[in-house]
Protein backbone atom coordinates (compact mmCIF):
# COMPACT_ATOMS: atom_id res chain seq x y z
CA UNK A 1 0.00 0.00 0.00
CA UNK A 2 2.81 2.37 0.85
CA UNK A 3 5.10 1.34 -1.97
CA UNK A 4 2.98 2.61 -4.86
CA UNK A 5 2.50 5.92 -3.10
CA UNK A 6 6.21 6.27 -2.77
CA UNK A 7 6.73 5.48 -6.39
CA UNK A 8 4.26 8.19 -7.25
CA UNK A 9 6.01 10.77 -5.13
CA UNK A 10 9.63 10.08 -5.92
CA UNK A 11 9.16 7.90 -8.92
CA UNK A 12 12.59 8.07 -10.45
CA UNK A 13 14.65 7.56 -7.33
CA UNK A 14 12.61 4.74 -6.00
CA UNK A 15 12.75 2.92 -9.27
CA UNK A 16 16.54 3.23 -9.32
CA UNK A 17 16.76 1.86 -5.79
CA UNK A 18 14.60 -1.07 -6.69
CA UNK A 19 16.65 -1.73 -9.74
CA UNK A 20 19.94 -1.64 -7.84
CA UNK A 21 18.66 -4.22 -5.40
CA UNK A 22 16.79 -6.49 -7.70
CA UNK A 23 13.14 -7.25 -7.26
CA UNK A 24 13.65 -10.01 -4.64
CA UNK A 25 14.88 -7.64 -1.94
CA UNK A 26 12.00 -5.23 -2.19
CA UNK A 27 10.74 -6.24 1.29
CA UNK A 28 14.13 -5.72 3.02
CA UNK A 29 15.00 -2.86 5.31
CA UNK A 30 15.67 0.41 3.49
CA UNK A 31 18.84 0.79 5.57
CA UNK A 32 20.54 -1.95 3.54
CA UNK A 33 20.13 0.02 0.35
CA UNK A 34 23.76 1.00 -0.02
CA UNK A 35 23.13 3.46 -2.81
CA UNK A 36 22.48 6.20 -0.25
CA UNK A 37 25.35 5.32 2.06
CA UNK A 38 28.20 7.36 0.68
CA UNK A 39 26.29 10.63 0.95
CA UNK A 40 25.38 9.96 4.57
CA UNK A 41 28.86 8.76 5.50
CA UNK A 42 30.67 11.72 3.98
CA UNK A 43 28.23 14.20 5.46
CA UNK A 44 28.35 12.59 8.90
CA UNK A 45 32.16 12.58 8.84
CA UNK A 46 32.05 16.27 8.00
CA UNK A 47 29.56 17.09 10.77
CA UNK A 48 31.45 14.95 13.26
CA UNK A 49 34.71 16.66 12.45
CA UNK A 50 33.19 20.14 12.73
CA UNK A 51 31.48 19.30 16.02
CA UNK A 52 34.71 17.78 17.33
CA UNK A 53 36.60 20.96 16.49
CA UNK A 54 33.92 23.14 18.10
CA UNK A 55 33.82 21.06 21.26
CA UNK A 56 37.58 20.65 21.65
CA UNK A 57 38.43 24.28 20.81
CA UNK A 58 35.45 26.23 22.11
CA UNK A 59 32.86 24.50 24.24
CA UNK A 60 34.95 22.19 26.41
CA UNK A 61 37.57 24.84 27.30
CA UNK A 62 34.86 27.39 28.09
CA UNK A 63 32.96 25.06 30.34
CA UNK A 64 36.09 23.70 31.95
CA UNK A 65 37.27 27.23 32.70
CA UNK A 66 33.98 28.02 34.39
CA UNK A 67 34.07 24.78 36.34
CA UNK A 68 37.69 25.36 37.39
CA UNK A 69 36.81 28.92 38.35
CA UNK A 70 33.92 27.63 40.41
CA UNK A 71 36.13 25.05 42.08
CA UNK A 72 38.73 27.69 42.95
CA UNK A 73 36.02 30.11 44.12
CA UNK A 74 34.57 27.46 46.37
CA UNK A 75 37.94 26.41 47.75
CA UNK A 76 38.91 30.05 48.35
CA UNK A 77 35.60 30.70 50.07
CA UNK A 78 36.04 27.60 52.20
CA UNK A 79 39.59 28.63 53.11
CA UNK A 80 38.42 32.14 53.97
CA UNK A 81 35.58 30.80 56.04
CA UNK A 82 37.98 28.47 57.80
CA UNK A 83 40.42 31.28 58.63
CA UNK A 84 37.60 33.53 59.78
CA UNK A 85 36.33 30.74 61.93
CA UNK A 86 39.80 30.21 63.41
CA UNK A 87 40.07 33.94 64.07
CA UNK A 88 36.68 33.96 65.73
CA UNK A 89 37.68 31.00 67.87
CA UNK A 90 40.88 32.82 68.83
CA UNK A 91 38.92 35.92 69.75
CA UNK A 92 36.48 33.86 71.71
CA UNK A 93 39.35 32.27 73.61
CA UNK A 94 40.87 35.71 74.26
CA UNK A 95 37.52 37.04 75.47
CA UNK A 96 37.13 34.04 77.71
CA UNK A 97 40.59 34.55 79.16
CA UNK A 98 39.78 38.21 79.69
CA UNK A 99 36.58 37.32 81.47
CA UNK A 100 38.48 34.84 83.63
CA UNK A 101 41.05 37.49 84.38
CA UNK A 102 38.39 40.03 85.25
CA UNK A 103 36.62 37.52 87.41
CA UNK A 104 39.82 36.68 89.25
CA UNK A 105 40.57 40.40 89.66
CA UNK A 106 37.16 41.16 91.02
CA UNK A 107 37.38 38.18 93.32
CA UNK A 108 40.70 39.43 94.60
CA UNK A 109 39.42 42.99 95.03
CA UNK A 110 36.38 41.70 96.85
CA UNK A 111 38.54 39.60 99.13
CA UNK A 112 40.81 42.57 99.81
CA UNK A 113 37.90 44.86 100.55
CA UNK A 114 36.41 42.29 102.81
CA UNK A 115 39.69 41.88 104.64
CA UNK A 116 40.13 45.63 104.94
CA UNK A 117 36.63 46.10 106.24
CA UNK A 118 37.10 43.27 108.68
CA UNK A 119 40.37 44.78 109.88
CA UNK A 120 38.76 48.21 110.25
CA UNK A 121 35.89 46.76 112.16
CA UNK A 122 38.25 44.85 114.38
CA UNK A 123 40.36 47.93 115.02
CA UNK A 124 37.32 50.02 115.79
CA UNK A 125 35.96 47.31 118.01
CA UNK A 126 39.28 47.12 119.87
CA UNK A 127 39.48 50.88 120.20
CA UNK A 128 35.98 51.06 121.55
CA UNK A 129 36.65 48.18 123.83
CA UNK A 130 39.75 49.91 125.14
CA UNK A 131 37.82 53.09 125.66
CA UNK A 132 35.05 51.26 127.41
CA UNK A 133 37.56 49.42 129.51
CA UNK A 134 39.20 52.70 130.43
CA UNK A 135 35.84 54.14 131.35
CA UNK A 136 35.04 51.08 133.40
CA UNK A 137 38.37 51.31 135.14
CA UNK A 138 37.87 54.99 135.81
CA UNK A 139 34.42 54.32 137.09
CA UNK A 140 35.70 51.53 139.28
CA UNK A 141 38.40 53.78 140.57
CA UNK A 142 35.83 56.45 141.34
CA UNK A 143 33.66 53.92 143.08
CA UNK A 144 36.61 52.70 145.08
CA UNK A 145 37.53 56.27 146.05
CA UNK A 146 33.98 57.06 146.97
CA UNK A 147 33.81 53.85 148.99
CA UNK A 148 37.09 54.62 150.69
CA UNK A 149 35.89 58.09 151.40
CA UNK A 150 32.64 56.72 152.66
CA UNK A 151 34.48 54.20 154.77
CA UNK A 152 36.62 56.98 156.19
CA UNK A 153 33.53 59.01 156.95
CA UNK A 154 31.97 55.97 158.64
CA UNK A 155 34.53 56.04 161.48
CA UNK A 156 34.15 59.78 161.83
CA UNK A 157 30.36 59.41 161.92
CA UNK A 158 30.69 56.53 164.34
CA UNK A 159 32.98 58.61 166.52
CA UNK A 160 30.63 61.59 166.37
CA UNK A 161 27.68 59.34 167.07
CA UNK A 162 29.51 57.57 169.86
CA UNK A 163 30.58 60.85 171.48
CA UNK A 164 27.06 62.18 171.10
CA UNK A 165 25.65 59.00 172.64
CA UNK A 166 28.23 59.11 175.40
CA UNK A 167 27.52 62.81 176.08
CA UNK A 168 23.83 62.14 176.28
CA UNK A 169 24.28 59.13 178.54
CA UNK A 170 26.98 60.47 180.76
CA UNK A 171 26.35 64.12 180.55
CA UNK A 172 29.89 64.84 179.83
CA UNK A 173 31.68 64.66 176.58
CA UNK A 174 34.05 61.83 176.03
CA UNK A 175 37.52 62.56 174.97
CA UNK A 176 38.26 62.31 171.35
CA UNK A 177 41.00 59.76 171.84
CA UNK A 178 38.76 57.44 173.81
CA UNK A 179 36.04 57.60 171.27
CA UNK A 180 38.50 56.97 168.46
CA UNK A 181 39.94 53.92 170.14
CA UNK A 182 36.46 52.64 170.96
CA UNK A 183 35.39 53.03 167.36
CA UNK A 184 38.51 51.30 166.21
CA UNK A 185 37.91 48.45 168.58
CA UNK A 186 34.36 48.01 167.30
CA UNK A 187 35.37 48.18 163.72
Amino acid at each position, binding site marked *: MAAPEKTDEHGGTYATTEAAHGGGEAGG*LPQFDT*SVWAGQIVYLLFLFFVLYL*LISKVFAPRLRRVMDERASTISTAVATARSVQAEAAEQAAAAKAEVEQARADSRRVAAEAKARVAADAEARRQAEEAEVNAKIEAAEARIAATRDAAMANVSTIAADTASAIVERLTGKPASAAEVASAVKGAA
Partner: protein
Amino acid sequence: MADPIEQFEVHPIPGLEFGEVTLPVLGVQQIAVTNAHVAMTIAFALVVLFLTAVTSGAKVVPGRLQSAGETLFGMIDGVTDSIIGHEGRKYFPFVFTLFTLVLGMNLLGMFLTFTATSQLAVTGTLALITILLVIGIGIAKHGLGFFLLFWPTSAPLAIRPVVGLIEFLSFLLRPVTLALRLFGNMLGGHIALKIFAGFVVSMGGLAAAGGLGLLGLPVAALSMGMVVGLTALEFLVAFLQAFVFAVLASIYLNDVVNLGHGH
Protein backbone atom coordinates in the same frame (compact mmCIF):
# COMPACT_ATOMS: atom_id res chain seq x y z
CA MET B 1 -2.08 0.24 7.92
CA ALA B 2 1.02 2.26 7.20
CA ASP B 3 4.19 0.35 6.46
CA PRO B 4 6.28 0.41 9.68
CA ILE B 5 9.58 0.45 7.81
CA GLU B 6 8.64 3.21 5.43
CA GLN B 7 9.99 5.70 7.99
CA PHE B 8 13.52 4.41 7.43
CA GLU B 9 13.58 5.14 3.72
CA VAL B 10 16.18 7.62 2.63
CA HIS B 11 14.89 9.74 -0.22
CA PRO B 12 16.22 12.91 -1.76
CA ILE B 13 14.58 16.21 -1.04
CA PRO B 14 12.84 17.09 -4.31
CA GLY B 15 14.98 19.41 -6.39
CA LEU B 16 18.19 18.55 -4.55
CA GLU B 17 19.24 15.52 -6.58
CA PHE B 18 22.50 15.75 -8.41
CA GLY B 19 22.71 12.48 -10.29
CA GLU B 20 24.65 9.33 -9.57
CA VAL B 21 28.24 8.23 -9.33
CA THR B 22 29.82 4.77 -9.18
CA LEU B 23 32.22 4.13 -6.28
CA PRO B 24 34.51 1.08 -5.93
CA VAL B 25 33.06 -0.64 -2.84
CA LEU B 26 29.58 0.77 -2.43
CA GLY B 27 28.63 0.68 -6.11
CA VAL B 28 26.21 3.16 -7.59
CA GLN B 29 25.69 6.12 -5.27
CA GLN B 30 23.12 8.85 -5.32
CA ILE B 31 24.39 12.34 -4.94
CA ALA B 32 21.56 14.17 -3.27
CA VAL B 33 20.52 16.04 -0.17
CA THR B 34 18.26 13.49 1.51
CA ASN B 35 16.04 13.47 4.56
CA ALA B 36 18.96 11.79 6.38
CA HIS B 37 21.09 14.84 5.67
CA VAL B 38 18.34 17.11 6.91
CA ALA B 39 17.94 15.12 10.14
CA MET B 40 21.68 15.07 10.75
CA THR B 41 21.95 18.78 10.06
CA ILE B 42 19.13 19.65 12.45
CA ALA B 43 20.62 17.42 15.17
CA PHE B 44 24.03 18.96 14.62
CA ALA B 45 22.60 22.48 14.70
CA LEU B 46 20.64 21.74 17.87
CA VAL B 47 23.73 20.34 19.58
CA VAL B 48 25.79 23.38 18.58
CA LEU B 49 23.00 25.74 19.63
CA PHE B 50 22.59 24.00 22.94
CA LEU B 51 26.31 24.00 23.69
CA THR B 52 26.59 27.63 22.60
CA ALA B 53 23.73 28.63 24.85
CA VAL B 54 25.26 26.67 27.70
CA THR B 55 28.78 28.01 27.39
CA SER B 56 28.42 31.53 25.97
CA GLY B 57 27.13 33.10 29.16
CA ALA B 58 28.64 30.54 31.47
CA LYS B 59 28.67 31.79 35.03
CA VAL B 60 30.23 30.49 38.21
CA VAL B 61 26.75 30.18 39.63
CA PRO B 62 24.97 28.33 36.81
CA GLY B 63 21.48 28.97 35.53
CA ARG B 64 19.05 26.23 34.61
CA LEU B 65 20.31 25.66 31.08
CA GLN B 66 23.94 25.80 32.11
CA SER B 67 23.21 23.29 34.87
CA ALA B 68 21.73 20.89 32.34
CA GLY B 69 24.71 21.31 30.02
CA GLU B 70 27.16 20.90 32.86
CA THR B 71 25.40 17.74 33.96
CA LEU B 72 25.92 16.18 30.52
CA PHE B 73 29.45 17.53 30.39
CA GLY B 74 30.25 16.27 33.87
CA MET B 75 28.72 12.89 33.14
CA ILE B 76 30.93 12.25 30.12
CA ASP B 77 33.88 13.84 31.90
CA GLY B 78 33.30 11.36 34.72
CA VAL B 79 33.14 8.49 32.26
CA THR B 80 36.38 9.35 30.46
CA ASP B 81 38.09 10.21 33.71
CA SER B 82 37.12 7.05 35.56
CA ILE B 83 37.65 4.70 32.61
CA ILE B 84 40.71 6.16 30.88
CA GLY B 85 42.25 7.77 33.94
CA HIS B 86 44.39 10.89 34.07
CA GLU B 87 44.74 10.94 30.29
CA GLY B 88 40.96 10.93 29.95
CA ARG B 89 40.77 14.68 29.46
CA LYS B 90 42.63 14.40 26.19
CA TYR B 91 39.98 12.07 24.79
CA PHE B 92 37.04 13.85 26.37
CA PRO B 93 36.23 16.03 23.32
CA PHE B 94 36.03 12.96 21.09
CA VAL B 95 33.77 11.00 23.44
CA PHE B 96 31.65 14.08 24.12
CA THR B 97 31.26 14.68 20.38
CA LEU B 98 30.11 11.09 19.93
CA PHE B 99 27.73 11.38 22.85
CA THR B 100 26.13 14.70 21.95
CA LEU B 101 25.79 13.85 18.27
CA VAL B 102 24.23 10.45 18.93
CA LEU B 103 22.01 11.89 21.67
CA GLY B 104 20.94 14.73 19.38
CA MET B 105 20.07 12.40 16.52
CA ASN B 106 18.33 9.90 18.83
CA LEU B 107 16.20 12.55 20.50
CA LEU B 108 15.44 14.30 17.24
CA GLY B 109 14.09 10.96 15.97
CA MET B 110 11.44 11.21 18.68
CA PHE B 111 10.13 14.43 17.12
CA LEU B 112 10.77 14.01 13.40
CA THR B 113 9.57 11.30 11.07
CA PHE B 114 13.14 10.29 10.39
CA THR B 115 15.79 9.01 12.80
CA ALA B 116 19.35 9.39 11.58
CA THR B 117 20.70 6.84 14.07
CA SER B 118 18.35 4.20 12.69
CA GLN B 119 20.48 4.26 9.54
CA LEU B 120 23.15 1.58 9.46
CA ALA B 121 25.35 3.90 7.42
CA VAL B 122 25.29 6.45 10.25
CA THR B 123 25.88 4.11 13.18
CA GLY B 124 28.46 2.19 11.14
CA THR B 125 30.33 5.41 10.40
CA LEU B 126 30.38 6.40 14.05
CA ALA B 127 31.58 2.92 15.04
CA LEU B 128 34.28 3.00 12.37
CA ILE B 129 35.49 6.43 13.43
CA THR B 130 35.76 5.10 16.97
CA ILE B 131 37.56 1.87 16.13
CA LEU B 132 39.90 3.54 13.62
CA LEU B 133 40.80 6.09 16.27
CA VAL B 134 41.45 3.25 18.72
CA ILE B 135 43.72 1.48 16.24
CA GLY B 136 45.40 4.74 15.28
CA ILE B 137 46.13 5.69 18.89
CA GLY B 138 47.27 2.14 19.64
CA ILE B 139 49.80 2.10 16.82
CA ALA B 140 50.90 5.70 17.38
CA LYS B 141 51.47 5.09 21.08
CA HIS B 142 52.87 1.58 21.11
CA GLY B 143 53.91 0.79 17.55
CA LEU B 144 53.81 -2.93 17.00
CA GLY B 145 53.30 -3.29 20.73
CA PHE B 146 49.68 -2.53 19.89
CA PHE B 147 49.28 -6.20 19.05
CA LEU B 148 50.04 -7.07 22.67
CA LEU B 149 46.40 -6.09 23.13
CA PHE B 150 45.56 -9.55 21.81
CA TRP B 151 48.21 -11.37 23.85
CA PRO B 152 46.65 -12.38 27.17
CA THR B 153 49.58 -12.47 29.61
CA SER B 154 47.38 -13.67 32.43
CA ALA B 155 46.41 -16.89 30.63
CA PRO B 156 48.54 -20.07 30.77
CA LEU B 157 51.12 -20.16 27.98
CA ALA B 158 49.63 -23.21 26.28
CA ILE B 159 46.26 -21.65 25.58
CA ARG B 160 47.48 -18.13 24.92
CA PRO B 161 47.35 -18.41 21.12
CA VAL B 162 43.76 -19.61 21.31
CA VAL B 163 42.72 -16.89 23.71
CA GLY B 164 44.66 -14.40 21.62
CA LEU B 165 42.77 -15.45 18.53
CA ILE B 166 39.47 -15.05 20.36
CA GLU B 167 40.58 -11.63 21.59
CA PHE B 168 41.45 -10.62 18.06
CA LEU B 169 38.11 -11.79 16.71
CA SER B 170 36.26 -9.99 19.49
CA PHE B 171 38.23 -6.86 18.64
CA LEU B 172 37.15 -7.16 15.02
CA LEU B 173 33.56 -7.53 16.17
CA ARG B 174 33.68 -4.39 18.29
CA PRO B 175 32.77 -1.93 15.53
CA VAL B 176 30.08 -4.31 14.32
CA THR B 177 28.44 -4.61 17.73
CA LEU B 178 28.90 -0.91 18.36
CA ALA B 179 27.10 -0.06 15.13
CA LEU B 180 24.42 -2.75 15.40
CA ARG B 181 23.54 -2.01 19.04
CA LEU B 182 22.55 1.59 18.32
CA PHE B 183 21.04 0.74 14.96
CA GLY B 184 18.99 -2.14 16.37
CA ASN B 185 17.72 -0.17 19.32
CA MET B 186 16.56 2.73 17.20
CA LEU B 187 15.14 0.48 14.50
CA GLY B 188 13.23 -1.77 16.91
CA GLY B 189 11.87 1.06 19.00
CA HIS B 190 10.58 3.03 16.06
CA ILE B 191 9.07 -0.02 14.37
CA ALA B 192 7.24 -0.96 17.57
CA LEU B 193 6.00 2.61 17.95
CA LYS B 194 4.79 2.70 14.38
CA ILE B 195 3.05 -0.68 14.60
CA PHE B 196 1.14 0.18 17.75
CA ALA B 197 0.29 3.62 16.43
CA GLY B 198 -0.97 1.95 13.26
CA PHE B 199 -3.16 -0.35 15.36
CA VAL B 200 -4.73 2.66 17.01
CA VAL B 201 -5.73 4.07 13.64
CA SER B 202 -6.89 0.84 11.96
CA MET B 203 -8.80 -0.44 15.00
CA GLY B 204 -10.30 2.98 15.53
CA GLY B 205 -11.40 2.99 11.90
CA LEU B 206 -12.95 -0.43 12.36
CA ALA B 207 -14.84 0.79 15.40
CA ALA B 208 -16.03 3.86 13.52
CA ALA B 209 -17.76 1.55 11.04
CA GLY B 210 -19.95 0.37 13.94
CA GLY B 211 -21.48 -3.09 14.47
CA LEU B 212 -18.99 -5.85 15.32
CA GLY B 213 -16.21 -3.41 14.57
CA LEU B 214 -16.82 -1.82 17.96
CA LEU B 215 -14.78 -4.72 19.36
CA GLY B 216 -11.79 -2.90 17.93
CA LEU B 217 -12.17 -0.12 20.49
CA PRO B 218 -10.46 -1.87 23.44
CA VAL B 219 -7.64 -2.97 21.14
CA ALA B 220 -7.21 0.60 19.96
CA ALA B 221 -7.21 1.85 23.56
CA LEU B 222 -4.65 -0.76 24.57
CA SER B 223 -2.46 0.16 21.61
CA MET B 224 -2.73 3.81 22.54
CA GLY B 225 -1.48 2.94 26.03
CA MET B 226 1.37 0.99 24.50
CA VAL B 227 2.31 3.95 22.31
CA VAL B 228 2.41 6.24 25.32
CA GLY B 229 4.51 3.78 27.32
CA LEU B 230 6.82 3.03 24.41
CA THR B 231 7.35 6.72 23.74
CA ALA B 232 8.54 7.21 27.30
CA LEU B 233 10.72 4.12 26.96
CA GLU B 234 12.15 5.36 23.68
CA PHE B 235 13.21 8.63 25.26
CA LEU B 236 15.05 6.60 27.87
CA VAL B 237 16.58 4.38 25.19
CA ALA B 238 17.61 7.42 23.14
CA PHE B 239 19.58 8.73 26.08
CA LEU B 240 20.85 5.36 27.26
CA GLN B 241 22.16 4.27 23.87
CA ALA B 242 24.05 7.53 23.43
CA PHE B 243 25.55 7.00 26.87
CA VAL B 244 26.38 3.36 26.17
CA PHE B 245 28.08 4.39 22.93
CA ALA B 246 30.19 6.91 24.84
CA VAL B 247 31.05 4.44 27.60
CA LEU B 248 32.05 1.72 25.13
CA ALA B 249 34.14 4.18 23.12
CA SER B 250 35.90 5.14 26.37
CA ILE B 251 36.51 1.50 27.24
CA TYR B 252 37.96 0.76 23.81
CA LEU B 253 40.14 3.89 24.01
CA ASN B 254 41.32 2.87 27.46
CA ASP B 255 42.46 -0.50 26.11
CA VAL B 256 45.03 1.17 23.88
CA VAL B 257 45.80 4.28 25.94
CA ASN B 258 46.68 2.24 29.01
CA LEU B 259 47.90 -0.81 27.13
CA GLY B 260 49.83 -3.18 29.38
CA HIS B 261 48.95 -1.63 32.72
CA GLY B 262 45.20 -1.85 32.54
CA HIS B 263 44.94 -5.59 32.06
